[in-house]
């Protein structure tokens, strides 16, 4: 199949899937249903695009195809920061913050913390990749546990509310935040696409990149910042989804047929959105269930990760 057809075909597919999600069976209260579906759809598109691009960027930065920002604990860090903010401002003070201000504050904290943590890790640990991944996974557990700990300390009776953030769900997309999330995601993706050529050089490795005249550390930091922003948006929208990015990019690479970032980013976004919308349609309409889609993705993605990890290493 000609490579040039991939993008248009995917785009058409997404359009069709979107229509299939939005339109059928609207019934009497069609305005209400449509706006509800539109919100969910918006959430899926934003989250899908954000996670796809974040994963592509992160895999370039870590020079590893089985890593994603979530595996390294980005999303757990985000939840920890949320909980910490609640702890420092008090539950009432925190609830009193306007949604946007709260979101931006969390975002700033996440970008700062992840630059510090993961920048150091990536700088130091690139020789022993497995140890770095292991560290990331443990950090994820640490952050999740710390969130749980803080939540208990905050209000032992109400911790269940914060606990519910652990399970991802598309039904809790916040309509008021959606435009801002979409805007931030769009900006970040545009920035990533503008950097695409430089990212191609970055992917060659530190020594070749520097010798070709790339400002290696700057580009790396920018890519990490973008990753952090995108992960924060996605996690704030629907909660943690550790393996979506892994599946999506693993599928997108052979479809794109190239490692150049511009086409790869585009294909990944389309594949991600298509997967989410189709999957959600399937579960909501065809199987008429309340959407365990994220759980299914997590499970399947976890298995994919497991086998990618062992592939070629097991004899």
């Amino acid at each position, binding site marked *: 199949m000609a490579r040039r057809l991939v993008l248009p075909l995917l785009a058409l597919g997404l359009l069709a899937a979107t229509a299939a999600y939005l339109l059928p069976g609207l019934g009497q209260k069609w305005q209400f249903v449509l706006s509800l579906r539109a919100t969910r759809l918006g959430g899926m598109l934003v989250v899908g695009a954000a996670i796809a691009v974040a994963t592509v960027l992160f895999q370039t930065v870590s020079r590893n195809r089985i890593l994603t920002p979530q595996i390294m604990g980005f999303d757990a860090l985000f939840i920890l920061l949320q909980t910490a903010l609640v702890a420092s401002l008090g539950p009432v003070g925190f609830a009193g913050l306007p949604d946007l201000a709260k979101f931006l504050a969390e975002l700033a904290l996440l970008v700062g913390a992840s630059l510090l943590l993961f920048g150091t890790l990536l700088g130091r640990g690139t020789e022993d990749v497995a140890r770095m991944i292991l560290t990331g996974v443990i950090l994820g557990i640490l952050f999740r546990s710390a969130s749980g*700990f803080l939540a208990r300390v905050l209000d032992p009776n109400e911790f269940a509310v914060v606990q519910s953030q652990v399970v991802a769900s598309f039904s809790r997309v916040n309509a008021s935040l959606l435009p801002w999330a979409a805007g931030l995601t769009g900006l970040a993706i545009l920035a990533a696409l503008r950097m695409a050529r430089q990212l191609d050089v970055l992917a060659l490795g530190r020594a070749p990149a520097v010798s070709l005249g790339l400002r290696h550390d700057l580009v790396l930091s920018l890519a990490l910042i973008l990753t952090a922003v995108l992960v924060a948006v996605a996690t704030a929208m629907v909660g943690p989804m550790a393996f979506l990015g892994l599946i999506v990019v693993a599928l997108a690479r052979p479809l794109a047929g190239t490692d150049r970032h511009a086409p790869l980013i585009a294909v990944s976004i389309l594949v991600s959105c298509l997967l989410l919308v189709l999957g959600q349609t399937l579960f909501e309409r065809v199987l008429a269930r309340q959407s365990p889609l994220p759980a299914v993705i997590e499970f399947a993605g976890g298995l994919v990760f497991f086998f990618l990890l062992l592939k070629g290493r097991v004899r």
Partner: protein
Amino acid sequence: MRLWLALGLVLAALAVVSLATGAADLGVALGRDGSKAALIFWASRLPRTLAVMLTGAALAVSGVVMQQILRNRFVEPGTVGTGESAALGLLAVTLIAPAAPIWVKMAVTALAGLAGTALFLRLVRGIPPREVMLVPLAGLVWSGVLGAMVLHIGWQTDLLQLVQVWLMTGEFSGVIAGRYELLWIAGAAAALALFAADRFAILGLGEGLATGLGLKPAAVMRLGLVVVSVVTALVMATVGMVPFVGLVVPNITSRIMGDNLRRSLPVTALGGAALLLACDIAGRLVIHPYEVPVGTVLGVVGTMLFLWLLWRNPRHG
């Protein structure tokens, strides 16, 4: 030699603190109504302290056994899916045969844990020993996948509260006399491992050397799996999943006194009891009179210790 003595003293001190710590003020109760204080002590404080010590010791020992079986020092039953497989078994039997006697439920849980671990062993069998980080990493991912299954089943069958709070997060607040006695069996299983310490140590030398010394590696491995599964199932069903004790305590012990298990296993057991007791006391004190589950405390303390173990420079070149 003196390490176990020092640890024993620390443990005794912690035990005293543990007996004195709790939501009710024992001293006050003692002053007012002797029989009430006695009730609190015998029905709640003492069983809880004993339960914590038994669990800590048993988990630390099963950690060592797992490390010898996998010939890798960064693993334990809590990080290779044993706990999660056992949880699946427990969920299955609770859903399918809720009226079954307790021993049946325990047996099914232990068997499920054993099956999950054996499957993992099979999957990682071909990994060359020099890829040290790969096995624990695969284990964490595997347990994550299984854990997602557990959470999902809980969500689907409306047992999510049960699963998340009771199974996945270990805590000792529900321990009273009559509810924890199964842990003595876990302690007995760990004691069994103590008797077979030399065999496990030889197993850790490698299959070639172990066979050459006249051991049957497969048989020792099976014994180890049984010990690990029984301990995990009993602990999980009684108090939930208690992570990282089996990983960090054996590593620290090994760093100090090496892997001659005949000598180091008792020390590891004492160390596990002490660590868990310390974390449990911390959990009781930090937001007194409320409690933070020990599983959550360990999620923070244990992971930080794990990271330290992972990144510290080895003592020797």
